[in-house]
């Protein structure tokens, strides 16, 4: 065997919950048993991104990529791969296109089109090791600005780079900084928004779990640029692993004189404290977030004044998203031209997306802005699960909209998505197939918004509740002719009169599904039919001729509406059926159709 091998084990939440920690332990035990401690090192890294096939184990320097590894495979990996230098064929990924095993990660479709800036270190270093971060050019950007640049220079670089807020708004980060740097105040704050509330998004969490130092470095650079000495990370309490790793990273940074009174021995002072969120989606809105950090209810206030002028305790405050901050050090190191060479003219750089839903490769991907939806879904994402038909993809979460077949070749950036009636949002991308009912999906989002509305302003509190009620009626087969017009009118009113971004965007899923899938709405209203078979009240269970008369369905029916003799085809009495689906689940002969 060769010396100095590294075994990287994914330590993201998804892989850890699938026994990732046990894999690490078994690998280390096995290494000890074979006395290889000096030749082989096991590193638990951040997320590799390929969550669908986790837990993932990589062997370096060969870059062998093992998927769906179980704790009991650890011994084999050490014996066969490390000692005998034979790749374990059955743990390799199979390319669905040609059925061949893929040996190296970079040759997988999933990774080919990705460009990693924010996720540069995720899956390559141990997130808890400052040494490994520094070996990967970590804190070099900070050193560079402290020794060779004025704060104005730094602001100018970020402004020229064209970096736009990755939390979803897409506002120019450099402009925000410039605004705050010009405000004179005895105290200023840098806030990192890590309150990822969008359901189905996990980019920020993965960055904090995989590379917390890059976020810390971004915050210190921002502090230097605007003249702030204090940073705060507002993080969801539901992210225990991210909190733990961030806390360790802050401590080691303090020990290494990177945080504290004299950063890198200069006069510049900066420190970071962690503030916990408590599960409120609206706290992603910067004014609500600031109120929450002050210990109160997370209710937004009108802007202006913008936080850059009067934020945390009334002082100038910059609120930047995790992913935005993770880009900063790279821009400082590699320059404006490099950053602008990636992505599109008005949206330079990359975007991290959390791919999820009915897609083969669920995971975390980072692609240049301007990559098309088709590339993301069908090449990187490996297409739709179970060869179903693609129906729509929702971007921007509860504030966004859905894009369909005809939008697949649209290059994705902030402006193109807005033009299509959706938005970038934080980067959640939920793929839906023919089995998803779009009315039910928009009801799902509304349910979320109603639940998460802070209740301060009437349009959002009352309007969204009414929207939800109308949608609920439609899914129950009680829709009326005039509902569509009412939904549209109500949505417009809510959009124009709500106080904050939550209310202003909450009707988007409704409007966008009406625009793209009007026929589905009309079917629900006129024909009382749900083509996807999702809306329970509109379902019809019918027994076909595969029925062998085993009576299993009749025995489980709670209202006894299935009749028939033993060994003869049974019949469901539609007038009494309560559409519970018990018969469908009980049948072993596929004899029950859902219409």
């Amino acid at each position: 065997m060769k010396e100095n091998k590294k075994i990287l084990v994914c330590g993201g939440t998804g892989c850890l919950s699938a026994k990732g920690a046990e894999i690490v332990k078994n690998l280390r035990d096995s290494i000890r048993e074979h006395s290889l401690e000096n030749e082989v090192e096991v590193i638990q890294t951040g997320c590799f991104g390929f969550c669908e096939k986790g837990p993932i184990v990589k062997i370096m320097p060969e870059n062998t990529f093992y998927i769906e590894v179980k704790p009991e495979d650890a011994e084999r990996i050490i014996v066969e791969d490390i000692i005998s230098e034979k790749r374990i064929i059955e743990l390799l990924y199979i390319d669905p296109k040609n059925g061949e095993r893929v040996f190296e990660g970079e040759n997988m479709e999933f990774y080919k089109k990705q460009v990693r800036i924010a996720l540069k270190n995720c899956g390559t270093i141990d997130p808890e090791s400052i040494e490994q971060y520094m070996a990967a050019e970590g804190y070099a950007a900070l050193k560079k600005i402290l020794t060779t640049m004025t704060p104005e220079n730094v602001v100018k670089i970020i402004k020229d780079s064209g970096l736009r807020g990755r939390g979803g708004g897409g506002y120019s980060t450099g402009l925000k900084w410039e605004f705050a740097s010009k405000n004179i105040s005895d105290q200023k704050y840098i806030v990192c928004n890590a309150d990822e509330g969008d359901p189905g998004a996990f980019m920020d969490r993965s960055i904090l779990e995989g590379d917390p130092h890059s976020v810390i470095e971004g915050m210190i650079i921002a502090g230097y640029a605007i003249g702030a000495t204090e940073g705060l990370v507002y993080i969801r309490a539901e992210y225990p692993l991210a909190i733990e790793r961030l806390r360790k990273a802050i401590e080691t940074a303090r020990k290494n004189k990177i945080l504290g009174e004299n950063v890198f021995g200069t006069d510049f002072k900066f420190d970071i404290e962690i503030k916990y969120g408590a599960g409120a989606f609206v706290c992603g809105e910067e004014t609500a977030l600031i109120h929450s950090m002050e210990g109160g209810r997370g209710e937004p206030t009108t802007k202006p004044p913008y936080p850059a002028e009067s934020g945390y305790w009334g002082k100038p405050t910059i609120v930047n998203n995790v992913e935005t901050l993770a880009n900063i050090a790279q821009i400082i190191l590699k320059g404006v031209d490099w950053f602008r060479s990636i992505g599109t003219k008005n949206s330079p750089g990359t975007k991290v997306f959390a791919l999820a839903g009915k897609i083969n490769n669920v995971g975390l991907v980072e692609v240049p802005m301007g990559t098309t939806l088709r590339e993301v879904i069908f090449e990187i994402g490996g297409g739709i699960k179970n060869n179903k038909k693609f129906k729509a993809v929702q971007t921007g979460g509860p504030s966004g909209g859905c894009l369909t077949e005809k939008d697949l070749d649209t290059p994705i950036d902030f402006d193109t998505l807005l033009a299509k009636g959706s938005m970038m949002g934080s980067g959640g991308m939920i793929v839906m197939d023919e089995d998803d009912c779009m009315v039910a999906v928009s009801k799902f989002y509304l349910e979320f918004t109603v639940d998460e509305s802070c209740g301060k302003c009437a349009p959002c509190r009352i309007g969204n509740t009414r929207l939800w009620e109308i949608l609920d009626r439609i899914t129950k087969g009680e829709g009326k002719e005039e509902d569509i017009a009412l939904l549209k009118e109500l949505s417009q009113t809510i959009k124009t009169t709500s106080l904050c971004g939550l209310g202003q965007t909450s009707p988007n899923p409704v409007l966008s599904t009406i625009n793209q899938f009007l026929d589905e709405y009309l079917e629900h209203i006129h024909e009382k039919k749900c083509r996807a078979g999702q809306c329970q009240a509109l379902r019809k269970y019918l027994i076909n001729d595969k029925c062998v008369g085993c009576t299993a369905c009749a025995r489980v029916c709670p209202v006894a509406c299935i009749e028939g003799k033993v060994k003869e085809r049974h019949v469901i009495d539609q007038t009494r059926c309560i559409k519970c689906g018990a018969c469908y689940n009980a049948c072993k002969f596929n004899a029950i159709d859902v219409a």
Partner: protein
Amino acid sequence: MACDNKLKKEMFEELKKYIDEIGEKNGALISVLHKGQEIFGYLPQEIQEFIAKEMNIPIAKVYGVVSFYHFFSMTPKGKHPISVCMGTACYVRGAEKVLNSVKNYLGIDVGETTEDGLFSIDALRCVGACGLAPVVLIGKDVYGKEQVKDMKKILEKYRKESVG
């Protein structure tokens, strides 16, 4: 009820110590509530009153904050708190079915605790393990994908363990 959490004196002392150690009380309410919930498991009226008194803020403000955030609970959780993820990715992969099967099996609704104090159900907004969708957390154990098709079996396992 097996859930007669005795609010022990030492628990209050621990919370008081935490409050006393905070240098700047202004703005620390949420951190204190997090600590309180960590110690007691939930935040009933009695504890909210205690926090208000110790921090010298109106009880109405404390209640206002507790009732605003999902994370804070005023009812005790079960011995095995069940959280069903209702994020979008889990939703399109059938989380609703999973939630209904848990509700039907236990005979309680979201936000409630069973009579014997063993289980409580919560619907979470997104645990961020979308690769495992649909996801169910029971205490610190994570279940996903194919496993959650038979929640009854999983819950019976916990019931057996508890009953012994």
